[in-house]
């Protein structure tokens, strides 16, 4: 049956002639249906080929060239990749900043989203109103306006400094201090818990109530029910959110760009990977170099996503696997 899955020609799959015959008659009509299918898909397909696959391949070529956007690219072999790791301290700094961000912002975001989903999974009056309210930040969070708001909140005379000042703590400007600027961006990311929260909520609704009933009868308390029912049953959803979070937070750009005025400052403390790609490509006209960085990022994200998938068989429980 393993071969059957690879669905090549009916003969190869060893299907009986009569069944193959019905399949052929079936496929003739769907062929024209498929044409319609492709036609309706075509905006997306053309977009994929022209705006995604094409540029991606070109950027692979450009990553081996010296290309300033305005003159034809010059082939330089692996020079861009060598320079990145041997002669560019800012690149290594960008890697450090990005990894710090991903490994704090992504898990914190998930934990926060899960906690709120648990809270909002209760049956009280007006719960859908609360859910909507808590979802709002993630509608706004990626926007320029919020990044500017953040600048105000964590600025010199911002709300945070004033509240701390009230308690006698000497306020500083969090967004413009190299030690703290990155953490304000982590907080901004955690605050955008909405979409992960909604997915968690949906996951929570899927958990059969009889499991809880049985556990309660057996004398399990709230904490045990959470650890032994909720969490294991939720692992597929956690896994899904985790993969999305890894990919998203590696590609974070807007908040750092706005809050640091496009420079990744102060002192490169918010120099996200993608921001450095942008600076090299569009500000310094080193598009070949920027392409090389883009490809390394693709590999990094690929590796971490693969790691998440590989690890998943040890901690993700699917219903059908039981």
């Amino acid at each position, binding site marked *: 049956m393993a071969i059957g899955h690879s669905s090549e020609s009916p003969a190869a799959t060893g299907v009986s002639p009569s069944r193959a015959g019905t399949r052929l008659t079936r496929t003739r009509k769907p062929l024209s249906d498929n044409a319609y299918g492709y036609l309706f898909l075509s905006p997306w397909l053309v977009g994929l080929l022209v705006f995604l696959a094409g540029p991606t391949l070109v950027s692979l070529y450009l990553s081996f060239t010296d290309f300033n956007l305005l003159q034809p690219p010059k082939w330089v072999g692996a020079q861009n990749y060598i320079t990145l790791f041997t002669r560019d301290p800012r690149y290594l700094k960008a890697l450090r900043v990005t990894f710090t961000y991903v490994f704090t912002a992504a898990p914190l975001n998930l934990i926060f989203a899960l906690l709120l989903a648990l809270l909002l999974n209760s049956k009280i009056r007006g719960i859908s109103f609360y859910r909507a309210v808590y979802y709002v930040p993630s509608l706004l969070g990626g926007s320029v306006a919020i990044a500017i708001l953040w600048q105000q909140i964590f600025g010199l005379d911002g709300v945070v400094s004033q509240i701390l000042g009230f308690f006698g703590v000497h306020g500083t400007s969090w967004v*413009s201090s190299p030690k703290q600027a990155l953490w304000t961006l982590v907080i901004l990311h955690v605050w955008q818990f909405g979409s992960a929260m909604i997915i968690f909520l949906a996951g929570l609704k899927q958990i059969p109530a009889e499991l809880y009933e049985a556990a309660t009868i057996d004398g399990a308390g709230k904490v045990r029910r959470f650890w032994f029912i909720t969490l294991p049953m939720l692992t597929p959803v956690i896994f899904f959110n985790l993969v999305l979070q890894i990919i998203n937070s590696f590609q974070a750009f807007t908040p750092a760009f706005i809050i640091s005025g496009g420079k990744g400052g102060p002192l490169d403390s918010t120099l996200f990977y993608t921001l450095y790609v942008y600076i090299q490509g569009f500000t310094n006209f080193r598009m070949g170099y920027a392409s090389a960085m883009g490809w390394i990022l693709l590999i990094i994200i690929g590796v971490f996503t693969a790691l998440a998938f590989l690890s998943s068989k040890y901690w993700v429980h699917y219903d059908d696997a039981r």
Partner: protein
Amino acid sequence: MAKQADLKTAGPAGRLTRRTILVGAGALAVSPLLSGVSFAQDATTMRLSWWGSDDRHKKTLALIQLFQSKHPGLTITPEYGGFVGYQDKLSTQFAGGNAPDVMQVAEPGPLIAAGRLLALDDYIAAGKIDVSNASQSVLDTAKVDGKQYSVPWGLACGCYFFDNQVFEDAKVDIPDYGWTWDEYAKVAKSLSKPGFYGSADIWAAAGTRSLAGLEVFLRGRQKYAFTPDGKIGFGPDEITEWFTFWDELRKAGAVPPGEVTALETGFETSPIITGKAAMYPINSSIASSLQGLTKHKLTVAPFPTGVGSTALKGDQYGAFVNSSMQVFINADAKDKDLAAAFVNFALNDPEAAKIQLMARGVPASSKIAELVTPDISPVEQSMVATVKYVADHASPGFVPWPKQGAEVQDLMQRSHQAVAFEQASIADTVSQFFDQAGQILG
């Protein structure tokens, strides 16, 4: 199957056949061509791009209206915004072959090197762009390899803005135009009190002036930021002295700590506007925009001089006049004569001058500058006097930046931050600066 049949027969009027779809798709595919054709038959169009504040946007839009009224059938499409990201957008437009016809350019070096900007010498020689009333020394600052690629759309100099209210309250005299770095330090210290600083620091997060101030100091010693062959034009001694001067002021509380300076993302958020400092160094051309943001009266003075100063000592006057904005024409502009006509109009037309006033600094043509001076605000009067003082005292000589100049300025910005945030000693910062500048300049 049944579902699909339903769909197909659902509405006889909206019956979908392969032919109708093909015809529809074909029409869709051709429609951009059709609109392209109709466009070409339309009146001429030209695209104009600039950065600036609201004040400049309003005045430039009015300028466009006036030019259009003098050229019936012409439509000028304005493209404008703030400074952050402007150059990046423009570079991308050039890369995509979709750049404006006439534009301000912040970093023209790479574009000129790639032959994307038009040399204006022929137009100037033919009198199509009249620069006879513009200062030759300023025109020379815009020359690359002996060719004139741009003309100044306004003159400016590095300057200090003073918040007069603070000076009055503290009973400190407004400094003279000829003030020295010693006097600057003294005034900055005397105006400072806890949480308030006499002067803004010399670097800003936007990075627009971290090399300009240094250049004034260097010129006092007959040096420049770069050498004519595109290397760093100064040594470790000068830059150490420079960093030390600012570090001492910072430690004395006369200029703000790093966290406060880093909050500035443009002059709109500068310490003189947020009420954190009394003096603010920047290009003089923003005078009216800056004044628009505060109720306190502002006045302008040139950068301090090193002549007769113990700190940052120099043996000649360092400040200099440059173009506040340079206006360029795309080498692939559709109608180059029309583009040149617009540039000439913006520079020399008296009616245009009455609209623009000082939106881009002092008009490059001395005749036009005189014409509009009666119409301008007090802060602009002060700016005009400052630019005139600097022009009268400036030492000759100019070395244009290499095409990586802006990248070196960003590096200078980070070096200032390393010292200000105490992430590295001045000695380490200096040696790292020369290492990395060497890499950038190749």
